[in-house]
């Protein structure tokens, strides 16, 4: 039951001279939702970028299903089963919603599987189904976020990385997105969720990691962190 899906071991990442991650350790079990919280510039997005291969760690290792992946290029990591819905959504604005969605399955060849995942993703996000031919750049912020998640699901990932899916969205939409995240997890996808909205994130997550200036300062079951005095003061507004 408690099988490790992803392990970060003493992970360091630099942007030129900026030492953004300073020895991150993290263990993610298959089937869980793990959230990564922390202030602006703490290194949350950097952690996700290192896992998906957008950044090359300067030290340490990343093991996915026991295999090291930190030397692989991003386009190979997707094929291993990790999809990343990046910060800022990363929609291709001049492509249609449909084309964006199908790009999510670029690495796959199983036509039947792609078709059934397309149906499933559209069932999760009926709003997208109505807008398939529309240029993705004309979608609202919430719809773009839905498209980013739906597109990531088209890779049929075993691990889904979500970077601030609630950013800039109206509260009702945030509710919808979080409900769907839970639904995706219930179908067996492990989720690593980065959030500023710590309250929401902690309430749906199994485990949580708090990072500050590139280091993990606390981790444990999300429920415990939700009631932790220091965490409440720093990230939950009291």
């Amino acid at each position, binding site marked *: 039951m408690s099988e490790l899906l992803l392990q970060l071991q003493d992970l360091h990442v630099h942007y030129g001279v900026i030492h953004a991650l300073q020895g991150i350790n993290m263990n993610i079990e298959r089937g869980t939702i793990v959230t990564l919280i922390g202030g602006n510039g703490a290194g949350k997005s950097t952690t996700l970028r290192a896992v998906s291969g957008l950044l090359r760690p300067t030290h340490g290792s990343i093991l996915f299903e026991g295999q090291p992946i930190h030397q692989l290029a*991003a*386009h190979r990591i997707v094929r291993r089963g990790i999809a990343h819905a990046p910060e800022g959504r*990363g929609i291709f604005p001049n492509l249609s919603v449909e084309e964006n969605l199908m790009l999510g399955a*670029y*690495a796959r060849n199983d036509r039947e599987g792609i078709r059934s995942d397309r149906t499933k993703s559209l069932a999760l996000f009926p709003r997208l189904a109505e807008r398939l031919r529309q240029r993705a750049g004309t979608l609202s912020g919430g719809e773009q976020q839905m498209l980013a998640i739906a597109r990531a699901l088209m890779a049929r990932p075993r691990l889904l990385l979500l970077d601030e899916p609630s950013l800039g969205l109206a509260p009702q939409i945030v509710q919808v997105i979080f409900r769907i995240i839970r639904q995706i997890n219930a179908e067996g996808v492990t989720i690593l969720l980065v959030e500023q909205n710590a309250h929401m994130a902690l309430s749906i997550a199994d485990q949580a990691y708090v990072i500050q200036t590139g280091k993990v300062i606390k981790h444990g079951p999300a429920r415990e962190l939700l009631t932790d005095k220091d965490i409440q003061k720093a990230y939950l507004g009291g």
Partner: protein
Amino acid sequence: MTTLFIQSLLDALTLGALYALIALGYTMVYGVLGFINFAHSDVFAIGAWTGLLTSSLLGLSIVMGSQTVEPRGWEIFLVIPAAVLVCGLLAWVIQRLAYAPLRDAPRLNVLITAIGVSLLLQNVGQLPWVFGTDPRPMPRLIENPLLFEIQGVQVTLLPMLTIVAAMVLMVGLEVLIFHTRFGRAMRAVSMNPKVASLMGIPVDRVIDGTFVLGGALAGAAGVLFAMEYPTVQQPASNTWVLLGLKAFIAAVIGGIGNIRGAMVGGFLIAFLERFGAAAQQFFPGIISFDTTVYRDVYCFAILIVILLVRPAGLFGRSVVEKV
């Protein structure tokens, strides 16, 4: 008058098709990498030379102003593919050796490298054991029979072939870019290479493929150009440089990075050039100066106008500068 009009139309279509083919290479590379590949016009020139040299290898050559062997008709099916192959390969080599190592460098560095590659090709091309500095006549690859006559204009096979071949290539490219998996990947890379890689797209290979495509089209254009205007100059000659520049302007006018824009831009420039040159004959009473000497000025003039009123080009969307 009608004769002149039809003649100008035919000339403009032929030349425009060639400009468009070259412009596509500029615009595709700009689309995926965001810089002007100045070496592109030299790849085009090398396409023409490849055409000339393979023709000689096949026994076709010109001695003392006349052709030694009459073309047998099938040579063209070897000569054009040879130029396509050589130029596709050359573009790939240039990308791998000169541009790929600079993927993370500022774009200005890449731009200057492109100018360097262009100068290198031009100057190596002048070496006596490469192409030398003397213009060489291009042998005939096919007969050029009269197809039909319309309003006193004799329409022969060669310009028609140029137009049709260019159209076929452009339609093929259009299908490739807008209706295939590779094309979708290419468009994704041009919009956001990082996110494209997250989709599983091998960004480096897509970029290489874009160069090969642009080079191949330039190679085909090189041979077609040499067949139509059968003097092949050294790559550094004013003729080639100006030609490359006009194709580049065509890409800018159409909206650099935009495939359809480059095609339209190519034809637009050729129309301006040909009809501009003939303007005095069209309006003899009104225009009293010799308009033909300004034939190269018109496209620069339209460039200035377009940059003033529609800086992103006819088909370009003004987008936020990518970083």
